[in-house]
């Protein structure tokens, strides 16, 4: 009986291996996309937080400057976006993050590794069974146990792969329109900075730009008010903050632009999940670029020090 099982397992192995096991190109792409998309969702979320923190810092800067004449009005410090508007965006980005994480999980090696682990355990148990002294007469050998285990492993992997091939394309297809719309809406939210004539600004980039303007104006006003009484070093430090703020304003805007570009890549790469079957290399180039951009953007968001400019 054991010998039959060994032969059958060898035959089954051949069939399954011929059928083609291992992670399919689609699943691999889906997983790689999920990892990069997850980073971009985090960066997009960080862009709202960055603007809110800058608004807060500009408000505090104004409070410090006006405290002697206006005192402190708790209602005077307001967030840029209302709770409902901000929550709607964070909820959508959280859902996008979950989508990316699910793709990463189901498309990657994890399901196949789990099958491997479970079948290795089964193989170990079969080996124990074959060495049971009570079954010594059946003479099951290691090769037969290995053959059977490999066949079960291949069958498990084939089943996982069939699930990938059947379930992933309709999900990815259904999400394409959603992803396109998300990217367009987030792009509209990110908007544009004012042009050289000072007009045409929109969205987060406009808000971030004008909040930095407010920080610069506050710093300049403070210097003008106190320039005759400031000790030389403190005055020099105060003046040095002006170009530093201008530099930070441009760098912060560049990061929002980079987030916009990453979102354009996200929509394009998601579309390539199903269409670039034969051009896997270019797909992975897109993903690698997306991931690099997303990591660089996250690095900048984390590096902003957001110190109140005045004093």
């Amino acid at each position: 009986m054991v010998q039959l099982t060994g032969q059958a397992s060898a035959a089954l192995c051949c069939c399954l291996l011929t059928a083609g096991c291992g992670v399919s190109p689609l699943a691999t792409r889906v997983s790689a996309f999920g990892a990069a998309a997850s980073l971009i969702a985090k960066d997009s979320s960080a862009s709202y937080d960055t603007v809110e923190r800058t608004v807060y810092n500009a408000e505090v800067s104004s409070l410090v400057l006006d405290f002697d004449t206006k005192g402190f009005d708790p209602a005077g410090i307001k967030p840029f976006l209302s709770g409902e508007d901000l929550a709607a965006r964070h909820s959508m980005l959280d859902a996008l993050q979950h989508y990316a994480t699910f793709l990463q999980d189901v498309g990657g090696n994890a399901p196949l590794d789990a099958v491997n682990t479970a079948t290795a355990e089964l193989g170990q148990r079969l080996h124990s069974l074959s060495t049971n002294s009570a079954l010594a007469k059946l003479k099951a050998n290691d090769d037969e146990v290995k053959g059977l285990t490999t066949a079960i492993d291949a069958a498990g992997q084939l089943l996982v792969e069939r699930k990938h091939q059947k379930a992933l394309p309709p999900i990815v297809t259904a999400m394409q329109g959603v992803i396109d719309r998300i990217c367009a809406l987030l792009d509209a939210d990110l908007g544009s900075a004012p042009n050289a004539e000072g007009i045409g600004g929109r969205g987060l980039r406009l808000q971030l730009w004008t909040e930095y303007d407010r920080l610069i104006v506050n710093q300049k006003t403070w210097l003008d008010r106190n320039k005759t009484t400031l000790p030389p070093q403190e005055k020099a430090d105060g003046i040095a903050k002006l170009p530093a703020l201008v530099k930070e304003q441009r760098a912060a805007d560049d990061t929002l632009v980079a987030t916009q570009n990453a979102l354009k890549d996200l929509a394009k790469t998601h579309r390539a999940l199903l269409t670039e079957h034969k051009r896997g290399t270019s797909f992975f180039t897109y993903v690698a670029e997306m991931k690099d951009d997303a990591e660089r953007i996250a690095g900048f968001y984390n590096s902003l020090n957001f110190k109140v400019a005045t004093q």
Partner: protein
Amino acid sequence: MPGPEPALSPIDTFQFLHYNLLRAIEASTDGAATSTMRQADNVIQDAITALNRADFRARTAEFQQLTGQINAQLTQLKALKEDMSRIVADVTLAAKVVDGIDSAIGVAAKIFPI
């Protein structure tokens, strides 16, 4: 002959005013003048913020709608993940069954020597 300049939208009009006040503040060396211009600029910036905020508000409903659409696909992905877990669970169960057989044969061999 060039036509008339197109009218600026309200948000661009306020940005134009803000831009020119900002340049004046930067060039000013008079503390009192800077303070006065800053107060005017604060009012203009508040108007820019209010218009910008309204623009965001106009898109909020669509963000909420898209969240629902993503969640619908998440349900599908969750089901796929569970299907895959079931395959692993089946193999794990087989290992447990074999283990049980191994133990049972060990006990049976003591009672009924093969």
